[in-house]
């Protein structure tokens, strides 16, 4: 039995050795083949080649559009008057959000120069970074409002005029800057005062670009009405359709008019009067510049609303204040 076992074992072992060897060789061959498994890699390669093709196409597109833009750019630079938008702004919770969505609108408008004037004794990093990232042509200024002229907590928004010093600072810088440019007082350009919480359609900027003296148009959601507008007869402004004190010399909102750069430079003394009675701020500026019949009506003879005097709610911070009282307020390093 033992010898038979031994014999059996020997042959079995030999057999087993041979078969295992064969099996190992086969397995090795299989492993080798696995590297050859293109079915797995093909989709990835296909994606890569597709991406490359796409990239190439987009690059071609860019090259083509730049090629057509170049001659156009020269033309636009000389033919499109620059719109100088003066925006006073002040630090509050929604400031960053307001400026961001404003910049998103402005980014669509060619030849626009944004003049942001902060109500602050110095330039804040929030606005500085925002302007850099915006991709717009801009000028960053600052001018603090005197304490007694400032609105206090709980004051209604109409109690004191806002943005006066800032707009005047914007005008001052503009005059100084433009005087140094070639062309002197005969430069093409339009000046527009845009508050940071209003809503502007892209059309309004094209409407105002051709302003020769002062152009006007309707403004939505202002003056306690759906819209305020100049009334146009025979292509001229004859009166103003407004629900509040229509006897003002220019009863319209800051967002409802634009002044040509020429006029601004020709009248270096014209600025906003902070002492003017409520609602007369715009008039205090325009009085020295134009008369009513010189106004240029835009927006299809002042029949379309292309800018809205929206106002943003102050966000409720009850819980934040409660937390801060406990010393558990949100991380102030996170910019909001």
């Amino acid at each position, binding site marked *: 039995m*033992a010898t038979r*076992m031994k014999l059996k074992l020997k042959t*079995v*072992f030999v057999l*087993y050795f041979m078969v*295992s060897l064969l099996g*190992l060789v086969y*397995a090795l061959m*299989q492993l080798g*083949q*696995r590297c050859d*498994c293109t*079915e797995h890699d*093909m*989709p990835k390669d*296909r994606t890569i080649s*597709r*991406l490359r093709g*796409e990239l190439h196409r*987009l690059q071609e*597109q860019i090259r083509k559009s730049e090629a057509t833009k170049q001659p156009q750019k020269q033309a636009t630079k000389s033919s499109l008057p620059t719109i100088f938008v003066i925006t006073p702004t002040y630090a509050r*919770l*929604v400031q960053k*959000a*307001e400026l*961001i*969505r404003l910049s*998103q*609108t402005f*980014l*669509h408008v060619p030849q626009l120069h944004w003049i942001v004037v902060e109500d602050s004794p110095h330039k804040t990093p929030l606005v500085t970074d925002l302007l850099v990232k915006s991709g717009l042509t801009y000028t960053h200024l600052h001018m603090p409002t005197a304490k007694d002229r400032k609105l206090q907590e709980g004051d209604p928004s109409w109690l004191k005029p806002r943005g006066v010093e800032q707009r005047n600072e914007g005008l001052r810088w503009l005059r100084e800057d433009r005087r140094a440019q070639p062309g002197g007082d005969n430069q093409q350009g339009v000046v527009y005062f845009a508050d940071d919480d209003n*809503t502007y*359609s*892209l*059309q309004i900027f*094209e409407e105002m670009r051709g302003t020769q003296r002062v152009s006007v148009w*309707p403004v*939505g*959601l202002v003056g*306690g*009405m*759906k*819209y305020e507008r100049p009334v146009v007869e025979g292509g001229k402004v004859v009166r103003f*359709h407004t*629900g509040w004190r229509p006897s003002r010399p220019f009863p319209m909102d800051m967002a409802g008019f634009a002044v040509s750069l020429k006029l601004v430079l020709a009248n270096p003394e014209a600025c906003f009067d902070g002492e003017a009675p409520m609602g007369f701020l715009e008039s205090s500026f325009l009085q020295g510049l134009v008369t009513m019949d010189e106004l240029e009506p835009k927006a299809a003879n002042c029949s*379309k609303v292309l800018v*809205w*005097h*929206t106002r*943003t*709610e102050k*966000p409720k*911070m*009850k819980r*934040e204040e*409660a*937390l801060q009282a406990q010393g558990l307020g*949100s991380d102030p390093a*996170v910019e*909001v």
Partner: protein
Amino acid sequence: MPKRRDILAIVLIVLPWTLLITVWHQSAIAPLLAIRKGTQYDGVEGKREAGGQVQDSKEYCASDKDIVEVVRTEYVYTRPPPWSDVLPTIHIITPTYSRPVQKAELTRLANTFLHVPNLHWILVEDSQRRTPLVTRLLRETGLNYTHLNVETPRNYKLRGDTRDPRIPRGTMQRNLALRWLRETFNANSSQAGIVYFADDDNTYSLELFEEMRSTRKVSVWPVAFVGGLRYESPKVNAAGKVYGWKTVFDPHRPFAIDMAGFAINLRLILFKPQAYFKLRGVKGGYQESSLLRELVTLNDLEPKAANCTKILVWHTRTEKPVLVNEGKKGFTDPNVEI
């Protein structure tokens, strides 16, 4: 003794064979799997769908889905960026309703969206019929859009200004948009897409859209001005996983996040066709959870915006304009659209 040897022999023979067989098993199955995947990929590549501009004469346009190069009709409006075949489409669902600031809100929202490539705007009106105001606005922007409408029944509507949290606003409209997506896109052959719920009064930075494009299931980020705080955000641990919510208002909700704080991969929406926002019986602040809990678990959430440390979206609210001077009969010409 022979028995032991027998056993030893058998073991010595069988063991390497089992090893060999397992190795063979694995190496045999893997190429098989790859072949199967290969055919699947072929399927994906074969039928490619992309959102195109929908004519507003039809309710929802499932056909006509060619990539349309948007033609500028007015020189004033800029074209949206050229459509890319590689970027996932962002489907933005915005419920809207008629009120004086509606046109202004939609205008500035459109101005923001015109900067985002591969964007498909699904605007759902809370109205019986699609209003001419919105129809005209959408057409003039030049964006890639779909215009839908469904009216919230009177007993669900909010009365005036009162924020009644038991009746969440915009729910039916968002659900209609989800249904439209499921009817329009096929689960098997869908182009990559991300679904985002954007209310018409919020403020969005352009960075946000690029952050959400890489969503695999559901991605989340902080939102400013919600929950009575400067911002609410998900809590992210060192491993980059969401484990909680940094909020004061009911942080133990399954998903204590605002509608603007998350985005969902389109594939997930299509794979779970039963997932909708719950309409009735939803506690205040639980609307988002009613949808998200059917789609993901906390562990699957992908934190964006630098591990939820940057604010890229603000929950701004626009004041209701004071129209006191309109009086009872309306002072201004009602034909002028605002």
